């Protein structure tokens, strides 16, 4: 990026919102810190105050008591319009200006801040490229773009003036599931590049687990039930409410946080073209064999296919195996996707390859189900897993 990128921490200090006439506060003494450059997801059922809490940051909701600090500065001391120009804002309805072109929409805040026209245009082009849209779309109007494209533009618009903090209020909530998944992945890719402090509101726990570095599970009255990393939340729900909210399938959800490399893979007996089948049969007969089928690999140890009984009838291993290879996984694949590939390929085993395409092991449905049943999957220990998007 040509513009320098910046991010600040966000700190809630006993922040409370009371609406006149309401018996209970909408947000009750919220204390929470989001470190600079991290995504904090506020998640909870509707009416839990998550949007109210988020909107305290840019003062579209006024704070009744307590404070919110961006970096070391209280938002209460700032003039609201000035404050908001330093905070990116993305809403579910997107809210692009229908009468302005895409470039003008992206340049809205820079224009308010008095940037020169050339700089605004350059910034729009840069951001369109960053979000993966053709810069030629800059001259179109929002009505000419698809919903997914519009939401990308909404994100670009929020990033235009290099905000310290991004507020995202269910930004992908109105997008169909397939495009939502794509937008989420794109957003994670983008975030890895720009490292903004993001407050993200959603009611979808799966989205929270996928996107959040930290998740604050909230319940009615704006109280935080648990504030933790996704893995902690899944392994050790602090309260019954969190446990219910996370769902009975939380072990399954943990697969979304793991990569294939994080689990112990099996070893398949390897066979090379032209090798004597007797040798291969000997490997299969070994007592500790984990995979009962030989995997045919080339001279670089890249998998070519599975050998069947029929392939082993001849004296030497044939160059064209009888069974197709089926799905091939990579060490970097997210475990949940790997399981989906296995199930979709209707195969019990899938070879896993390293970045060079060489065989690293074999993943089976059995390995995954053993993992899910193991105490490790349920234990309170912090597992040595990396966030999928890091």
């Amino acid at each position, binding site marked *: 990026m040509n513009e320098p990128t910046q991010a600040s921490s966000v700190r809630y200090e006993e922040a409370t919102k009371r609406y006149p006439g309401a018996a209970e506060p909408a947000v009750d003494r919220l204390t929470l810190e989001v470190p600079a450059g991290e995504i904090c997801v506020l998640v909870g059922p509707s009416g839990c105050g998550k949007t109210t809490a988020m909107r305290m940051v840019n003062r579209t909701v006024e704070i009744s008591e307590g404070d919110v600090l961006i970096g070391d500065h209280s938002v209460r001391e700032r003039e609201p*319009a000035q404050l908001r120009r330093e905070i990116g*804002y993305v809403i579910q309805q997107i*809210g692009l200006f229908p009468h302005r072109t895409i470039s003008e929409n992206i340049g809205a*805040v820079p224009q308010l801040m008095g940037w020169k026209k050339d700089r605004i245009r350059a910034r729009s082009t840069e951001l369109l490229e960053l979000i993966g849209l053709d810069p030629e779309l800059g001259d179109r109007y929002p009505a*000419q773009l698809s919903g997914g494209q519009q939401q990308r533009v909404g994100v670009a*618009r929020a990033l235009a003036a290099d905000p310290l903090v991004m507020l995202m209020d269910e930004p992908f909530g109105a997008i169909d599931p397939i495009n939502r998944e794509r937008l989420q992945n794109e957003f994670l890719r983008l975030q890895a590049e720009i490292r903004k402090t993001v407050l993200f509101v959603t009611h979808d726990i799966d989205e929270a687990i996928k996107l959040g570095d930290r998740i604050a599970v909230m319940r009615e009255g704006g109280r935080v039930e648990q504030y933790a990393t996704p893995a902690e939340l899944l392994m050790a729900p602090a309260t019954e409410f969190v446990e219910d909210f996370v769902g009975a399938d939380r072990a399954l959800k943990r697969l979304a946080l793991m990569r294939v490399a994080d689990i112990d893979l099996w070893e398949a007996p390897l066979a090379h073209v032209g090798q004597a089948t007797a040798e291969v049969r000997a490997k299969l007969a070994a007592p500790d064999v984990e995979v009962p089928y030989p995997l045919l690999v080339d001279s670089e140890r890249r998998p070519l296919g599975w050998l069947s009984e029929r392939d082993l009838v001849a004296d030497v291993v044939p160059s064209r195996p009888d069974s197709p290879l089926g799905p091939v996984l990579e060490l970097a694949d997210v475990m949940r996707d790997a399981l989906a590939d296995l199930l979709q390929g209707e195969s019990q085993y899938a070879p896993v390859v390293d970045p060079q395409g060489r065989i690293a092991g074999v993943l089976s449905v059995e390995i995954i189900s053993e993992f899910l049943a193991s105490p490790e999957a349920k234990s309170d220990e912090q597992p040595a897993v990396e966030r999928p998007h890091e």
Partner: protein
Amino acid sequence: MSNQLLLAAAGDVGGDFFRQRSSDTLPCQSRPDEVFCFDWARDNIDRFGTPTVQHLEMVVLSLVLGLAIAFALALLAHRVRWLQTPLLAATGVLYTIPSIAFFFLLLPITGLGRDTAIVVLAAYTLQIIYRNTMVGLANVPESAREAARGMGFTDRQILWRVELPLAIPEIVAGLRIAALSTVAIATLAVFIGAGGLGTQIYGSGNLTFPTSILIAAAIVMSMALALDAVLLTVQRLTTPWRRARAG
């Protein structure tokens, strides 16, 4: 009979056109059943020039004044919500006053001539322009407003940079209706001595000589259509986003 009364009343207050009539001899008298007298039209087409210019001036000035007042009222009602209904009612009452009566009611205040006509004609445009401006502002997508606020637009910036540009189609639509009715009503301005094409309808000759009336009416209609075309062009030029569609 009512025509004669009307002319008598008009003659009392304003009408130099009666003197004009008396000096003319009516043409085509040999063929009284002819609806349109081409000879007369050919010889007298010049006399429509000045009234046409007067008429157009009156209409344009009324529309500008009406737009200014209605727009100001709409902005006021946009900020002070409870004023919306009373203002709509007030402009509605103005709209119901019969035009001739309205002209004569204003005579003691603004006197004879163009000023009175412009005030009355402008008053008639208020209802339509005010109402359409309010509709235009109400139709602005709430999401655009919310996004603007969240991005740091001030209230004034939201109004001038988001809401009003988006309300232009409705505002211009109101202006177009107002322009059509103003062009027509302005023919009555002749009764308070404001000139315009009304002189050629109610004045030149008399109401039993249709040729002048037909020419004046044709000019009035052409003027209305021309103004409408101008406003439509203005609308198209100021709202290019309205024609942009997917593809």
